[in-house]
């Protein structure tokens, strides 16, 4: 049972994502592999109260990114993102 009041957006885990990718991802455009929606990563819905973090598409709610941190490292699954549009910094 998920309490929808606890759902955040990916802004809340922007620090974790920047640690993994080395750049800010919140303004990066992603394409959902399930429904094709294009939008900034920050608009993904963030489920942060489990052992790992799940980021879901704000349109179809399918899983886009999930990761779990352990004392030995981080496991990252980005199968739900068909594309990330990372622009060169000017």
């Amino acid at each position, binding site marked *: 049972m998920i309490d*929808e*009041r*606890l*759902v*955040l*957006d990916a*802004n*809340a885990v*922007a*620090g974790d994502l*920047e*640690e993994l990718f*080395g*750049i*800010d991802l*919140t*303004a990066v455009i992603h394409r959902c592999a399930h429904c094709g929606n294009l939008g*900034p*990563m*920050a*608009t993904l819905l963030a489920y*942060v*109260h489990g052992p790992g973090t799940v980021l879901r598409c704000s349109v179809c709610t399918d899983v886009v990114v999930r990761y779990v941190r352990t004392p030995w490292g981080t496991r990252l699954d980005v199968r739900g993102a068909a594309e990330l549009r990372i622009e060169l*910094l000017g």
Partner: protein
Amino acid sequence: MPSQPLGWRIATVAEIRDETSDVKSFSLLVPQWQTHRPGQHVDVRLTAAYGYQAQRSYSIASAPGPDGRVDLTVERIAEGEVSPYFHDVLVTGDEVEVRGPIGGYFVWEPSFGGPLLLIAGGSGVVPLMAILRERAGVDAPVSATLVYSSRTWDDVIYRDELEQLAANEDGLRVLHTLTRAQPPGWTGFARRIDRPMLEQALGGIGPQPLSYICGPTLLVEAAANGLVELGVDPGRIRTERFGPTS
């Protein structure tokens, strides 16, 4: 746009101020602080003696400055792990681990223009205050409306400063709504943010404001959906959901 890798740094608490009965602001001095953009946040990490770590994100309340000083405004969450430590344990001179600034989406800079429609619920006002403080410091600021939902008048964070900013008559309008109790003679709104309230806000600034919404998830969704129903381009609406996670 990080010019340096995101790493944990030791910040020193320079000043602590009471904002409301359960909200305090903490001025942190961060060594080699890269200047932030209004709307960004930092991650704070606490480590217990036996190694257990707790990490939370807090929005930056201050406008960017040259001096490596960052203000965080933290609401005390009774069953939280990090905010009670900030409220009950931290004193001036103490050190905490922070990393940031973080986030390039929920940000505003004067070059983005306006008009601005800022919608806040509770401590969701914090990143919007950084925007308003930045806006107040520039020549010919864009017009801005803040719609701010609090439980009671005593729960309004930055109440005096918001009154002062609005008194500058530089195009800032502040609309308060008090959802739980209202002082005698209250003439503002007294309900949750709804479509007629958003309509009234839009009435003063035009149909396509650059909109920033920050607060509890349900408020953010109600406000964002309401604006879209009223014809605001979704591409001009940025949201940040606050959860009871602290």
